């Protein structure tokens, strides 16, 4: 090691002295406090991020679960057939919505309520999602 660190001349000695004699400073009192405060904010942010992720995941799972469940129910129970042939007056009921869907909505009030219910569901999901995103962005 000595062959690398041995002073060669005055300048080397000056450099060595300048670097070796540099005093060891005390950290300012505010440092610890500031770090603690920032760490607190970071951990709160992380907590909110986790909460956001969990709530969004739950929302997506519930939504896809309900869609899947509805699909499966329709598939396995053959609901349209059951309603048209298995229920008294069912065919008429299905016919009523099919016709109202096919025709311009101006003729049948039922068509409006059907579409309105879809819109209502979409708005609900949108609002729940938007609330979570808003909370995530402005939680600090």
């Amino acid at each position, binding site marked *: *090691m000595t062959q690398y660190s041995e002073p060669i001349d005055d300048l080397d000695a000056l450099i060595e002295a300048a*670097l070796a004699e*540099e005093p060891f400073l005390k950290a300012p009192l505010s*440092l610890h406090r500031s*770090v603690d405060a920032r760490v607190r904010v970071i*951990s709160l942010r992380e907590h909110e991020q986790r909460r956001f992720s969990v709530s969004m995941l739950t929302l997506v799972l519930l939504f896809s679960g309900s869609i899947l469940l509805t699909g499966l129910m329709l598939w396995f129970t053959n609901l349209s057939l059951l309603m048209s042939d298995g229920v008294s007056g069912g065919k008429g009921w299905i016919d009523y919505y099919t016709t109202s869907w096919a025709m311009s909505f101006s003729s049948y009030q039922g068509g409006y309520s059907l579409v309105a219910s879809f819109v209502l569901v979409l708005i609900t999901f949108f609002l729940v999602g938007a609330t979570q995103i808003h909370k995530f962005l402005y939680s600090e």
Partner: protein
Amino acid sequence: MTREAAVKTCAQVLDNRAEALGDLELVRRSQSGSREAFSELVRRHQHLVYNVAYRYMRDATLAEDMAQESFVKAYRLLKGFRGDCSFTTWMYRVTSTTCLTELNKRKKRGEVELTADNGSLMCSTEHKPAEKDMKEQIRRCVTRLSDRYATIVTLYYLKGISYDEIAEVMSVPLGTLKTWMFRARKQLRTIVEKELTDNDAVFRTHR
């Protein structure tokens, strides 16, 4: 015993317990989400981190900012700390990287350092630079070394850091570190020589 006194005693007991714990245990607790454990780590290493940051930045305010930044970075990266080296060694690495990144950003932005010290040193017509100023000037030259050389020189002259530890921080064998150290000293000498010659020329012109 009043409620406040009981709370104070409890806090003191907890503090004493935290003090008795080793760094690695505190790291493990911090990784599990204990902010108090991380706070204790900050309390223990704040002076060292501040000094490393000061030696890179050469300014008290900037050094405090960089020390803060290093601890915050450490908190974020702590989950990835596997305990292969000591927490101190790891903190040196985090602090050095943080400071060098900031210095490189400043160099890219072309920020020129203009401190009161520098000003008086360059423009004084009355006195030759005092020895104290000259030493400070030499210390400033370290930041003009290449990144890895600046790191090893900074760490080497910091109290209580061995070559082995620096080699661990830099993730290089001891032999390589010694070669780097030799080259760093050579490079530093060239920079200091140029700096002192320039200053001498300025001094003569102003006279």
